[in-house]
């Protein structure tokens, strides 16, 4: 029983982070209809910002979330206005190949700048591990998960309560109608892309605490984001949360049952099966919340 609970706890902690990774990806996909292959590299960039902030200035990664978010919002906004905005209406292939090309560029830039060595943040004052009746919970990870869910919740609040957020939802629902209502659609696209980048950077900053950082890790996170989006349902924050937690738990249990080396295969096989059977995901429907 304790093993079951431990595996479940591990899965949920991981799942919270996955939700944060996927929320931004899902937002961009849902609103701009662009699959942002750069998302993985954004996450890695966020992780690097957190790493260097900690090593050089001693800033705790939880605080770097804001820093990483800021840097990436600027990058995402500029990228969208400069490059991606020109192909927003284009067919799937064009946008996919374009973001793939941009990702190659960003990835190479990071490789040249930071080298491929794996870095890890080793906190000088770790929060330690708490023992809840046999279930061990590393507090740093739990805090990271809580913060990730908080950020995702913040995105949800932003989309529901602020003018910009409602404009984004409007553009998602019906672009022409939003134009008629006076929404500056190109600016909303840029803001959305920037927001997606912020979520990625923030997630990266949190992930820096748990996983080793390297430009080579970007594709892994992108793959996870894909699976979460399809699992939970595209275009909603609730979907990202549900999908993230579900994937975390599924991965945790499949590592127990099939062995950790098959965890990746299981999540991808799950993705393919879902795409065939229920592409809209668990919570998916048209419209964005």
């Amino acid at each position, binding site marked *: 029983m304790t093993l079951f609970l431990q595996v479940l706890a591990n899965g949920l902690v991981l799942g919270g982070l996955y939700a944060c990774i996927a929320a931004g990806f899902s937002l961009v*996909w849902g609103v701009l209809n662009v*699959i942002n292959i750069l998302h993985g590299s954004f996450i890695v960039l966020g992780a690097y910002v957190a790493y260097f902030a900690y090593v050089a200035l001693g800033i705790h990664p939880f605080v770097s979330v804001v820093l990483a978010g800021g840097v990436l919002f600027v990058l995402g906004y500029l990228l969208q206005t400069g490059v991606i905005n*020109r192909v927003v209406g284009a*067919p799937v292939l064009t946008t996919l190949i*374009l973001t793939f090309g941009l990702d*190659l560029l*960003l990835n190479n830039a990071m490789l*040249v700048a930071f080298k491929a060595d794996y870095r890890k943040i080793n906190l000088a004052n770790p929060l330690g591990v708490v023992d809840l009746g046999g279930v061990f919970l590393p507090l740093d990870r739990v805090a990271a998960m809580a913060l990730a869910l908080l950020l995702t919740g913040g995105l949800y609040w932003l989309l529901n309560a602020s003018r910009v957020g409602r404009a984004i939802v409007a553009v998602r629902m019906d672009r022409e109608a939003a134009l008629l209502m006076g929404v500056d659609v190109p600016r909303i696209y840029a803001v959305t892309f920037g927001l997606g980048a912020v979520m990625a950077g923030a997630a990266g900053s949190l992930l820096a605490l748990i996983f080793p950082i390297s430009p080579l890790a970007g594709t892994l996170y992108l793959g996870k984001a*894909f699976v979460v989006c399809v699992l939970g349902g595209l275009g909603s924050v609730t979907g990202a949360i549900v999908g993230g937690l579900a994937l975390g738990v599924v991965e945790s249990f499949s590592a127990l049952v099939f062995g950790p080396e098959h965890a990746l295969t299981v999540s991808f096989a799950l*993705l393919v099966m879902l795409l065939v059977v229920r592409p809209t995901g668990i919570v998916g429907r048209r419209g964005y919340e």
Partner: protein
Amino acid sequence: MAVATLAAVVVALPFVAGNYLIRLASFAMMYSVLALSWNFIGGLAGYPSFATAAFFGLGAYAGAIAQGHDVPIVLAWLAAGALAAIFAGGLGLALLHLRGHYFAIASLVVGEVLREIANTSTQLTGGGMGLNLPILRLGVTAQARLFYFVLAGLAALTLAASLLVDRHRLGVGLRAIQQNEDAASMVGIDATRYKTIAFVLSAAFVGAAGAAYASWVNYIEPADVFDVLLSVKPIVMVLLGGAGTMLGPVVGAMVFLALEELVWRNFLTIHAGLLGLIIVALIFFLPRGLLALDVRLLALNVRRRFARGRPA
């Protein structure tokens, strides 16, 4: 005739050029096969398939495992192509009802799943340690020439299939499906059947090419033959040359490989970034590919020259 001179060049190349050029040309032929195959499902039918890597890797491993069990080499290649075709048929049943982004992702992920399966099935595929293939007892130059002709032959076969499909009702049907699938259905085109045939065609030659590649390099591993770039590069080549045209994929493959080799030789540390830059520039400046550009420029130049030659 232009075709005859081209054919002569292709046949004569390995006897006049050094081993380096033969190797480059062999890669050009291989990528032509991949690009032409992708054109069936992506250029004609308009379904953005990223499954090329999956078919290539499947063919490579099928050929390698067959050769490991003493199957004659040519039979191994044919069997690999057949296996890839059958796999595509089955996969098509599952995936071809998806459209747009979902189809793209699903086809991409199939390659990833196959790669992970190859990675973990150590008994069958050697897992992460890779698989060795028997080396042919020929000299280096003779072997280089042999594989050049094999890949060139495969490319010629794929081109022939392309031209056949283009003139046949299948080509018309696929183009109709790309423009408006529902309308094509209503007009009486069996969309599911045509799409599946296109998908199978996009796999058969790629599978055989994978097996030939395995025999050529004598060592394969999952990360190498299931590389996502094997899916992306043919698409970029076709976009470069002109999607939906018959010679576009070949032109695109040649130009892209020439660019890539130049970049790789001169800017090793940043070659991936430069590749990305080329891709971005391609999307912006050549949206319909080189062949579309050529014709317009050519027409303009001809008209200009003709106008100047006229008496005042």
